[in-house]
């Protein structure tokens, strides 16, 4: 287990003087030296800066004091290149911090690097990255999932003690599941989106990727909370880390949606998820079969709402102000066309076109407006389920990590790898993915726990209690462990 730290372990060791921030930072830097060439989790690493900062750290110990953390490269950090893994933003250095980056800094974190993603967070494998593909530390021939594949792979390989990612349709949970780590998508409005480069504004949410549910709860307590710079940030009771990790789960009612266990679900995944459910029962959780009847429309609804918003959000990359601009053009129109044709990758262009179409006059009602209505129905399904359940348990993804290249020619199949995570974003509710076992190929399998709006406490409590009696989350991938 040398070289693999959780937040809580590192904090305890700092406390006891067993390790210094500089020693921890060195171990992380060494790990990066050793495995990054194979995993390729980072767009940029800042190891020297991290080591310098670690050496200069002073007391008192702030909440993330001396902890090496990685940040997805669609979250702006002042003075650091932020690419969104897109050629169109190559070289862009934001003159501002995302609110999350500001809170991480204030808490004393050490920035390890900015992690790779599918371009503008559009994808489920990092194969859509405009820069390179990240490899899964459990099997380098496989994808780490996406879009926060870099963050999940970095945590799994021990290249950081924790990371932040963003989740629009499963982009934290699905890679967490593929990489055998914990990924939390908080309630929409829990974490400020200021400085998160927008993909689909009504769905995007930043969240932690960690080795344990305990760490995820801890990190959420640092990055969450109201932000006046984000109008969609909620003014609610702050998330209580204590409540999430101190109490048991006896008497909680967990719903199992029958729609999530039907056709398309890999038998091994089904078996491990069912196994996890019976372990929860052993902990005193009552299990109830429920129905989320509009789930089958989730993916279709998502690909209208998300692409419509994306088509507008990505309009600003026009070559006028920053980032890439095509050279040798004859006029304004050609500059727009060339810049965007060359600067964006295929998947981004595909989604911009889909979204533009969905919003076009004459199609708006049939597509965008209808999708918004279905979105309401999906949300109502959850509301109804939560009348009787405290949480809902499902697989995170229908399969374990797939091979690099396997789904690249078939976007629709690729889209389906988010089939169990997408509805959660449409409903704006929180969900966490935790490891619940391994396939016969030794690939991690993820369990998704979905909660009521702003009730991250309950789902993290379930996840933490589960991890107290299981050891899937302590397993080390072959790559990072060599």
């Amino acid at each position, binding site marked *: 287990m040398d070289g693999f730290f959780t937040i809580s372990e590192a904090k305890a060791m700092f406390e006891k003087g067993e390790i210094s921030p500089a020693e921890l930072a060195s171990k992380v830097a060494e790990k990066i030296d050793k495995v990054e060439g194979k995993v390729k989790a980072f767009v940029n690493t800042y190891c020297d800066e991290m080591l310098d900062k670690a050496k200069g750290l002073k007391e008192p110990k702030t909440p993330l004091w001396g902890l090496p953390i990685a940040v997805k490269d669609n979250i702006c950090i002042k003075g650091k290149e932020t690419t*969104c893994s897109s050629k169109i933003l190559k070289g862009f250095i934001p003159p501002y911090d995302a609110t999350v980056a500001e809170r991480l800094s204030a808490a004393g974190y050490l920035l390890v690097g900015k992690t790779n993603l599918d371009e503008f967070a559009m994808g489920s494998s990092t194969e859509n990255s405009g820069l390179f593909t990240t490899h899964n530390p459990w099997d380098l021939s496989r994808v780490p999932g996406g879009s926060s594949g870099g963050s999940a792979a970095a945590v799994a390989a021990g290249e950081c003690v924790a990371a932040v990612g963003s989740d629009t349709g499963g982009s934290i949970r699905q890679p967490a599941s593929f990489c055998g780590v914990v990924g939390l998508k908080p309630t929409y409005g829990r974490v400020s989106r200021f400085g998160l480069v927008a993909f689909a504004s009504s769905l995007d949410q930043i969240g932690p990727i960690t080795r344990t549910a305990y760490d995820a709860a801890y990190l959420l307590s640092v990055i969450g909370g109201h932000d006046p710079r984000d109008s969609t940030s909620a003014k609610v009771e702050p998330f209580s880390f204590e409540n999430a990790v101190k109490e048991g789960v006896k008497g909680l009612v967990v719903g199992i949606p029958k729609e999530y266990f039907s056709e398309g679900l890999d038998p091994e995944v089904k078996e491990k998820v069912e196994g996890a459910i019976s372990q929860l029962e052993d902990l005193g959780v009552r299990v109830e079969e429920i129905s989320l009847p509009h789930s089958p429309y989730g993916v279709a609804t998502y690909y209208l709402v998300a692409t419509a918003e994306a088509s507008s959000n990505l309009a600003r990359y026009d070559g006028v102000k920053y980032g890439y601009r095509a050279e040798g053009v004859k006029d304004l129109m050609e500059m727009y066309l060339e810049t965007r044709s060359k600067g964006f990758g295929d998947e981004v262009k595909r989604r911009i076109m889909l979204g533009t179409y969905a*919003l076009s006059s004459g199609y708006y009602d049939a597509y965008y407006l209808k999708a918004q209505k279905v979105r309401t129905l999906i949300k109502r399904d959850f509301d109804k389920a939560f009348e009787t359940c405290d949480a809902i348990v499902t697989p995170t993804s229908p399969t374990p990590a797939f091979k690099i290249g396997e789904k690249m020619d078939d976007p629709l199949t690729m889209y389906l790898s988010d089939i169990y995570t997408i509805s959660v974003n449409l409903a704006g509710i929180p969900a966490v993915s935790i490891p619940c076992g391994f396939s016969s190929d030794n690939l991690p399998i993820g369990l998704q726990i979905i909660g009521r709006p702003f009730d991250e406490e309950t789902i993290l409590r379930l996840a933490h209690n589960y991890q107290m009696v299981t050891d899937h989350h302590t397993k080390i991938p072959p790559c990072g462990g060599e």
Partner: protein
Amino acid sequence: MEYEAVIGLEVHAQLRTDSKIFCSCSTSFGADPNTHTCPVCLGMPGVLPVLNERVMELAMKASLALNCTINPMSVFARKNYFYPDLPKGYQISQYELPLAEHGWIEIETEEYGKRRVGITRVHVEEDAGKNIHGGPDDPHSYVDLNRTGVPLIEIVSEPDIRHPEEARLYMQKLRMILRYVGASNADMEKGELRCDANISIRPKGSTELGVKTEIKNMNSFRHVQRALEYEIERQIEAVEAGERIVQETRLWNVEKGITESMRSKEEAHDYRYFPDPDLVPYVVSDEMLERVRSELPELPDAKKERFIEQYGLSSYDASLLISSREMADFFEEAAAACSSPKAVSNWMLGDLAGHMNADGADIEDLRFSPKDLARLVTLVDEGKISGKQAKEVLTVMYREGKDPDTVVKEKGMEQISDEAALIEVIKKVIAENPTEVEKFKAGKKKVVGFFVGQVMRATQNKANPKVVNQLLVKLLEEA
């Protein structure tokens, strides 16, 4: 055949806030390019808009003053199009649910009388920046984003306007109302008030609408009227010549005095409006609405009626006095400090207006106070100075900002109304002019004028002519 025009106006007014609508950058005019910008108004990746509450207050004030109903909930929407002066690639505006709807304002022309023009909607939006194209030797274009994010309201009228003159009056009335409530400076020359017109013609008496054109670039009240006059003529000539009017956008060419085709309907943008997911719906509470309503000042129409009634002014004079809130306030303060509001009005609309027009000055530029004007009126009323002298005094007040008493004193203008003093002078004049006295006695009453002149000369014009007249007649008869 006789035709009538059907005109609707879309007016953009810049709201009078210190900071922009979605960030805290300054809205002040005339700064160096791109100095009033930040990541938010530059549309940098990841930044988010936060609504400036003051914008909504001013927009609500304007809407209420335009007799609109404020919607309990309004929604910001994105209007998507590509242009270098639009850094996000969309403009944040309101579309399906605007801030306010169903208003009207009243305009009056001599020829067509009083008419109400309906206001369809008032919505809030951000301004775009400005493209500046290089000269003949410079192939580059430049973008100045200082104006990006400056708050605007768009006021859309019903197609109720029938004459170009009415369009001009509508604009002027709108300007007056917006200035009254403090929502906008509404200076057309500074681009704080901009107007586009939709215009079509139809045979008089017909209720069907003709094909409309949209006219842009009319940047003064006079040009609004001129451009529409031209466009009506153009459309009539086209129809008479058997041509069909094409739905298109046309630009007013100020130099040539004509409208020119800019783009056809086919080239029009599909703006792909949809609710902006970065902003929450704007909800107006009853308390807020009441507060804004209670802060509204007396509006021009009501003030005019009151001035006519309270001060006995003519409708014409009242309408001039209420043309700005500052002017009306000045009048009322002066009127309250003397006993002749009518005289105050005459001075303001006569000599004072003359001075101000000559200098292009506004009432705010005056260097003397309303009380000073009231004092001037009182001095004349009390016979301390003559009307002719008062004009002179006002000129000095206007130029030097002195109060009238000081001017009168400095100029030695106090009239001699003291009878004993005047009798002495008059007796002397009578004694010196025996021939003229004879003429008076022979019945030539006109010679009184001669004696008045002599007395005035002897007193260096300081004698009160009214008193002199009365005394002269009496003393001449006694002589």
